[in-house]
C-alpha cells in the first residue's frame, strides 16, 4: 500500500475555535482521512513531540497551524513543523495576524501574568505564580516561557499559505480541502506561495447585500442605541462597520445579521496595515471641517484602537503597544 501523504494540525495560542471549525465541515472530514495520513493533531489524537522530531524533514505534506506564538513552546513547535512540512498554512486569524490573543501586546507581559494569576477572578490567596523551572523528586520540570509579545506565525517562520478567519468559515475550509485533494489527484495546481487561500480578493462589502450610497458620516452610533435600517449600509447609519477594509470570504455574515463587521478576516490583499486603512477611510468621510466638530464626531468612536486592531494588532506595522516594547527594554536591562 502506497503511503498516503501526511497531514498535521497544531493549536498554538488561540481559543480552539479553528479546530472546531475543521470538524464542522461534516462529512468532508472523511476526505481528509481518505486522502491523508494524520500524523500529528494533538486535539484529535495522541502524539508526542519527539515523534515529530523523529520524522524526516519535509515529510509532512500539509500542516494547518492555528494560533499565535505566545510562548517558547509555540515557537519551538512552529519551527519544528516548518522543518518537517512541505506546505505550512497559517490557519485562522491568530496564526495570520494575532487575533484576540494579540491584543495582549498592548500590555507588558508581566502584567499579563499578573492579571492571569492575581486578579479578583482568581482564587490565589498565597500569591502562587508559575515558575518556568521547578525541582521535583523526578528532576527539574519546565513549563513554557511567555514571550514579551505575541507574534504571528510568519513573524517566526516562513509560511506558504494564509487562511484567514476567526475561525475560517467551514465552507471555505471544505473548498481548500477539495483543492488540495484535486492537486493530489493531479487535477489542479497549487497557487503561488504566499497566497491567501480560502477567502476572497475583495472586501466584505462585496458580499454584503445592504444598499450603499456616497458615504458621509455625521456621527458614530452604537448598535444597541438605535433603530437600524435593515437594508442600508451600516456605516452610513453611523455604525462603525469594518467591512470596507476586511477581506471577503465570510459571505458578510455579521452585517447580514444586523451586526457590524469586526474584521476577523483581516486586511484585503496587499494591505500593509489594516487599522491604517480604516482610520483613513472613516476619517475621510466624516462630515466636518473644524477640528472641534471633527473631534466631536470622533468622540462617538469608543476605543478606536480596539475598533481598528481587534484582530490585527500583532500583524500590524507597529505590532504592539508601548508597554510591550517598554517591557522588552526593561527586561533587557535586567538581563545585563
Amino acid at each position, binding site marked *: 500500500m502506497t503511503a498516503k501523504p501526511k497531514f498535521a494540525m497544531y493549536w498554538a495560542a488561540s481559543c480552539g475555535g479553528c479546530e472546531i471549525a475543521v470538524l464542522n465541515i461534516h462529512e468532508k472530514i472523511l476526505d481528509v482521512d481518505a486522502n491523508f495520513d494524520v500524523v500529528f493533531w494533538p486535539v484529535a489524537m495522541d502524539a508526542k513531540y519527539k515523534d515529530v522530531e523523529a520524522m524526516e524533514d519535509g515529510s509532512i505534506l500539509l500542516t494547518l497551524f492555528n494560533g499565535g506564538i505566545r510562548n517558547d513552546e509555540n515557537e519551538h513547535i512552529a519551527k519544528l513543523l516548518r522543518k518537517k512540512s512541505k506546505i505550512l498554512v497559517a490557519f485562522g486569524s491568530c496564526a495570520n495576524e494575532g487575533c484576540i490573543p494579540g491584543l495582549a501586546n*498592548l500590555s507588558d507581559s508581566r502584567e499579563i501574568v499578573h492579571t492571569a494569576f492575581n486578579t479578583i477572578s482568581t482564587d490565589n490567596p498565597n500569591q502562587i505564580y508559575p515558575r518556568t523551572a521547578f525541582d521535583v523528586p523526578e528532576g527539574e520540570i519546565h513549563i513554557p516561557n511567555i*514571550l514579551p509579545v505575541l507574534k504571528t506565525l510568519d513573524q517566526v517562520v516562513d509560511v506558504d499559505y494564509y487562511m484567514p478567519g476567526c475561525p475560517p468559515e467551514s465552507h471555505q475550509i471544505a473548498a481548500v480541502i477539495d483543492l488540495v485533494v484535486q492537486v493530489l489527484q493531479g487535477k489542479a495546481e497549487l497557487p503561488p506561495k504566499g497566497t491567501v487561500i480560502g477567502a476572497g480578493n475583495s472586501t466584505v462589502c462585496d458580499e454584503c447585500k445592504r444598499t450603499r450610497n456616497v458615504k458621509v458620516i455625521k456621527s458614530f452610533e452604537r448598535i444597541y442605541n438605535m433603530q437600524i435600517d435593515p437594508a442600508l449600509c451600516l456605516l452610513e447609519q453611523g455604525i462603525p462597520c469594518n467591512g470596507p477594509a476586511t477581506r471577503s470570504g465570510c459571505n458578510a455574515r455579521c452585517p447580514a445579521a444586523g451586526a457590524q463587521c469586526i474584521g476577523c478576516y483581516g486586511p484585503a490583499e496587499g494591505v500593509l*496595515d489594516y487599522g491604517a486603512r480604516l482610520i483613513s477611510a472613516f476619517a475621510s468621510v466624516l462630515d466636518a*471641517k473644524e477640528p472641534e466638530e471633527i473631534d466631536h464626531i470622533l468622540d462617538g468612536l469608543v476605543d478606536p484602537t480596539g475598533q*481598528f486592531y481587534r484582530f490585527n494588532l500583532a500583524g*500590524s506595522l507597529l505590532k504592539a503597544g508601548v508597554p510591550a516594547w517598554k517591557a522588552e527594554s526593561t527586561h533587557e536591562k535586567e538581563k545585563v
Partner: protein
Amino acid sequence: MTENFEPTIIGFTCNWCSYRAADLAGTARMKYAPNVRLIRLMCSGRLDPTFVLRALSSGADGVMITGCHPGECHYIEQNYKALRRYLLLKRVLKGLGIEPERVKLIWASAAEGAKFASETTAFVEEIRKLGPLNWGKARDQLPVISEPIQREEVAA
C-alpha cells in the same frame, strides 16, 4: 538620557504649499534643525496613515505632516481629509501608548518659508523632549519573564 539624543523625523509635504515653503526657506537661507527628512506628496490628502505608522516602525521618532492652510488646498478641500485622518490617527496612537505629540500637523503656505523653518525647529525640540521612540528596536528574540512580580510594580 535625552541630552545627546538627535531625533530622526520624517516630514510629509504637499507639492503646492508646504514643499514650496521648504523651498522658500532654502532660497532665503533660513536655518533650521537638520533632523527632518522630507517626502513630497502631491497633496496632504495623499497622506495615508500607513505612511506614518511605517515611518514610526522603521525608526522615526516623530512624523511631521504639512499641507496648505484650510481653505487654500490646491485640490480645493483635500487637506480637510488630512486633518480628519490626523485627528483620528492621534487617538489610535494614544491607544497604543505612543505620545500623540509625536505626530504633528502643520499648515504652511508657499509663502511661509519662515513658518516652515520655525515650526520644524520647534517640532524637533518637542520630539527631543519626548525622547527616542525606539519602536521595536529589540523586536527580535527577547528574554522571557517567569518571576512573580510585586503588586506595587504593576501599579507603578
